[in-house]
């Protein structure tokens, strides 16, 4: 199992370094712009906001989908040819995801603290907002776990469905299921709610977005994920 996780890291280390560097650059750039604005007198307050990324929800949502993704035309079956059970392969990916999240979150949180510390040393009159706390780190980890769980369940369901359907069909069924749930929840709520008589007013649309931003965001995540897979033609994800 350790060897399998090490192999995933070796395979994904480039992508991991790239993602970390991009997020760190955005964070640094955000602080630098605010600092320059403050020095030039364009900032009304003495407070700088650290642009911190909540990686938990993102990796929690997309990570589960990574576990589901196996690529097309037999690609990504490399590990299945080895003398390992498919649950070992599955578990290997899940543990890798958890470690990946821990590494990325720890790097970003420490970077935020470090940047804030260095800036504070140079400009003691400045204040900061958005500096991550241990409570924030805990909440982020919790959202990672909360979001990973349903997607891992779906991945396991996908394996189970493969008893009857091909892996492609099983995956398509899952995607259809996710989309159906995303679409069905607001429609059912509207139908069952006494105030909605199937008339969509501006208010009801606003209420709908207010109420269902969670599923909508999840739907958006999905669209982004599949869009990205299409754009990269599964190049980076096919062997995952």
């Amino acid at each position, binding site marked *: 199992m350790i060897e399998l996780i090490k192999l995933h890291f070796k395979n994904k280390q480039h992508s991991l370094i790239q993602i970390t560097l991009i997020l760190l650059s955005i964070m640094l750039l955000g602080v630098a712009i605010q600092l320059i604005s403050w020095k030039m007198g364009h900032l009304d307050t003495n407070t700088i906001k650290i642009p911190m990324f909540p990686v938990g929800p993102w990796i929690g949502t997309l990570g589960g989908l990574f576990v589901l993704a196996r690529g097309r035309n037999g690609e*990504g079956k490399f590990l299945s*040819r080895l003398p390992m059970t498919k649950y070992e392969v599955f578990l290997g990916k899940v543990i890798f995801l958890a470690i990946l999240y821990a590494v990325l979150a720890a790097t970003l949180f420490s970077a935020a603290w470090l940047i804030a510390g260095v800036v504070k040393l140079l400009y003691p009159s400045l204040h900061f907002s958005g500096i991550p706390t241990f409570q924030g780190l805990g909440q982020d980890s919790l959202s990672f776990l909360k979001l990973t769980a349903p997607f891992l369940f779906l991945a396991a369901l996908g394996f189970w469905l493969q008893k009857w359907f091909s892996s492609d069909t099983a995956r398509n069924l899952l995607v259809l299921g996710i989309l159906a749930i995303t679409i069905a929840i607001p429609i059912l709520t509207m139908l069952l709610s006494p105030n909605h008589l199937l008339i969509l007013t501006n208010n009801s649309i606003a209420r709908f977005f207010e109420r269902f931003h969670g599923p909508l965001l999840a739907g958006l995540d999905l669209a982004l994920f599949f869009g990205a897979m299409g754009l990269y033609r599964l190049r980076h994800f096919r*062997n995952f």
Partner: protein
Amino acid sequence: MNTQAILEIDGLSQAYSRNLFRKTQVFNDFSLSLEPGKIYALLGRNGAGKTTLLNCILGLLAYKPGEIRFKGETMRPGNLHRFLQKITSVPSPTEMFPTVSANQYMDFFRKNYDNWDKELEARIRNMSDFDWTRQIKALSTGQRMQVLQALALCPEPELLLLDEPLGVTDPVVRKYFYKNLLSVVAERETTVIIATHLINEIANLFDEALFLKNGCLIMRKGMAEMQSDYQKFIFDKLPDVKIEGEVGRMIGDAALLSENPEKTEMDLQTRGLKFKQETPSIEDVFESFA
């Protein structure tokens, strides 16, 4: 030599789900038995079921009903990983993890298999012309094939499955791939199944050819048997009628293949048709049956 079948396929049925409602039946009640230590060429046109059959053996595809037995023991999804210690395959180089080095691959595989032939590994490394610390994406297709060959042979498999292993490689790579492979499998009496379209290149390598057509085994013969059992009749223009003894035609060559040359010859003479006779190549037999 041990005569117990190394692989037995019994009543295998496999269908691809095209979507929720439509299925394509590839195999229906397919059976096959392979002897240990032999090299089998798995031949057939695209869609005949070659890759599906190999994927079923490897457990990459589910099948129902049917049974696949390795040395008499039934392979099931739950116990498949045990058999994969003894059954290896050479996948397409595109399936490899691009940023992992050849050395890291070798380390990973070595730790996953119970047996590992270090001597063979050293031999393959010495024969290779590239740095094994390089990432897979930095290697040419031929070099990747050398890595895959090492990964498939070093675990000392009893059954080796090759699915179009050299489709995109140059003739030099192909020549050395088979040369190395044969020297190893001959030493160990490994059973090999090679599914390929490059039939002329393996004509002298295999013990038996298994011809698949629409998921059915339509012929199973050795090269010598094929050449003694069949005769090729070449014409200026192919006759419009079916000739006695005819089993198939080679449209491009204006020729037909006969399983009963005497009868065919008599029939052709009766019809007053001019012809030449030739010993068929494996490609001729393939074209006639496919």
